[in-house]
């Protein structure tokens, strides 16, 4: 008697659980770093929480610090746990995500920062290249030595694009300045970031920018009273006197858009082959700033207003130029783009003919770097 009672309860539980699974959307996230990195993974996780708040019926789960080699095993676990949408948030997850998409044709996959897609796998990116140019303008105005340092993670197209946009900005103000790059070959390694930053300052670089997922470069620069640019999240609080500006991201606009479209049936596991988000300042996926609501640290405003540059034969202050371009790229139809030709690479090869803008595909596959970038650049075409 007792036994049948229990079986009945268990069956009812299993049934209701199964129903809940069907009715609800479960989105799962695979992160490459720890959430506490203050950078990339932190930003993705903030967006995950924002999406959970914004979309009724959505549950989420995440796995942090996943090595690319463990991607497929992690996907297996998540799918078994009932995930119907899986976001993989690192370039290195691209191929394993594609493999997972083939293995689970009913699950929707979304890969950040890559370019390979499938009927059930879309790609998305909140890209900083325009913002990097604006920061480059400020770095060019503020450097006294004409040497700007850059602590860089990996020599992949994303970083080459960002460093090049930054260097184009630096040189637009200060044509003889250089952007000196040190690769640390890690997304997350505060120890390497610290020593790379120290090495750059020892070589005379008096402004630092970086792509690494912690606030280490900002902290290290401030220790030696060197201005720096915040990356990914607000790092203003780490050095309020030395963070000039930076790149800020808001992934939540992308996540909410994707998940709503999955929920209302716009996106299915059959129609994602050509879905690629390439969201910029116009879509409010990225912002310029030392922190949200502060595009430029007021402490540096006087110096940036005093510094001038020539635009179309006219002298304007760097501050005004930054603000003008920032306003433009936030508008519904931006007129300006940093990668508008003619652009030659640092070896003198013409990469973008006059009057033409680089396409998203070209930006995603970019291997060359702009003039002014100094240092070894792996996979650079001659």
């Amino acid at each position: 008697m007792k036994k049948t009672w229990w079986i009945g309860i268990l069956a009812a539980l299993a049934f209701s659980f199964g129903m809940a699974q069907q009715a609800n959307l479960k989105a799962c996230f695979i992160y490459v770093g720890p959430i506490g990195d203050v950078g990339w993974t932190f930003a993705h996780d903030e967006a995950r929480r924002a999406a959970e708040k914004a979309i009724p019926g959505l549950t989420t789960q995440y796995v942090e610090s996943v090595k690319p080699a463990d991607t497929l095993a992690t996907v297996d676990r998540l799918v078994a746990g009932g995930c119907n949408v899986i976001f993989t948030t690192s370039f290195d997850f691209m191929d394993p995500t594609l493999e997972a998409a083939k293995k689970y044709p009913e699950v929707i996959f979304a890969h950040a920062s890559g370019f390979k897609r499938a009927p059930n796998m879309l790609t998305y990116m909140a890209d900083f290249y325009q913002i990097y140019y604006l920061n480059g303008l400020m770095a060019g105005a503020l450097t006294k030595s004409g040497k700007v340092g850059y602590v860089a993670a990996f020599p992949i197209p994303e970083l080459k694009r960002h460093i090049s946009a930054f260097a184009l900005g630096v040189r637009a103000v200060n044509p003889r300045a250089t952007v000196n790059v040190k690769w640390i070959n890690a997304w997350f390694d505060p120890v390497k970031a610290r020593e790379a930053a120290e090495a750059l300052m020892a070589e005379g670089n008096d402004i630092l920018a970086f792509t690494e997922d912690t606030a280490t470069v900002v902290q290290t620069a401030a220790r030696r009273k060197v201005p720096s640019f915040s990356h990914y999240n607000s790092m203003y609080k780490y050095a309020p006197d030395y963070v000039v500006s930076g790149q800020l991201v808001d992934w939540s606009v992308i996540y909410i858009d994707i998940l709503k479209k999955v929920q209302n049936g716009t996106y299915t596991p059959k129609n994602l082959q050509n879905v690629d988000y390439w969201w910029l300042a116009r879509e409010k996926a990225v912002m310029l700033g030392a922190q949200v609501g502060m595009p430029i640290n007021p402490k540096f405003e006087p110096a940036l207003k005093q510094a001038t540059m020539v635009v179309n034969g006219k002298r304007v202050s760097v501050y005004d130029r930054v603000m003008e371009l920032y306003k433009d790229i936030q508008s519904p139809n931006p007129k300006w783009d940093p990668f508008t030709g003619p652009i030659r690479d640092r070896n003198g090869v013409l990469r973008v003919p006059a009057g033409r803008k680089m396409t998203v595909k070209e930006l995603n596959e970019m291997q060359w770097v702009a003039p002014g970038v100094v240092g070894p650049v792996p996979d650079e075409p001659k």
Partner: protein
Amino acid sequence: MEEVLNALARALSFGTPLLIACLGAILNERAGVVNLGVEGMMALGALAGFAVAYGSGGDGNLWLAVLAAMLAGALAALLHGFVTITLQANQFVSGLALTMVGLGTAGLLGKRFEGLPLFNQPPEWPFTLGAIGLALLLALVFQATHLGLSLRSVGENPAAADLLGIHVLAVRYAAVAAGGALAGLAGAYLSLVYRPSWTDGMTAGLGWIAVALVIFVGWSPIRAVFGAVFFGLLYYLQFRLQGQVAIPSEVFASLPYLLVILVLALSGLRGQQGNAPEALGKPYRRGER
């Protein structure tokens, strides 16, 4: 000249946590106990130090933070001590487990401290000088004191030490706890001084380099000073020389590990395990040979 001084300063700054952790490992290994949990103990120390420094806010709490870090390291090490000294389990397995438990626990408990800034940043040099002073002190203790003799005899020949009336287990426990305290201190240096903030994974493998350094310097505290500075210099140079010389920076990055392998190979060729204590890694059972 300025370049050389700067490189030396970087080598000392990076070498300080290595040296502190390495001295701790030398201490417990000289007493015959290997503890591969250095990385985990460093992570716990880094978190404990940061949590106390942040939690107590304002100034004048550095000592408290450092004390908390050393305590956290010592407690974790005592766990290793209980498993390996009293229960006589395999020291290598227990140490590896301690690394994982330490990293995991620190990551979990550290969630609420992630990304917080620490404004009261202590200078680096007192730690560096302190670490060098500690190395000298340890060398002196090992060579010229009764305490050092007892410690070394426990690591070389515990049975003989036991016959002489030395309490082998007590000495080993004390050495393991002290080693853990130093690993915790090395972690606190990272989260309070070297990179003042807490992030999961911030020990970045330094604990493992410290373990390798013990072998590289042949269990000598004095040589540990030079070893740590040398490793620090190599680490800095991989970035400083990047793009300046034709040698790829990966060569510099792998040099510390290559050197350790080379030293191990050479000591193997000479038919001895360097200066490794005779009873290293072996649990002591009274009355057994």
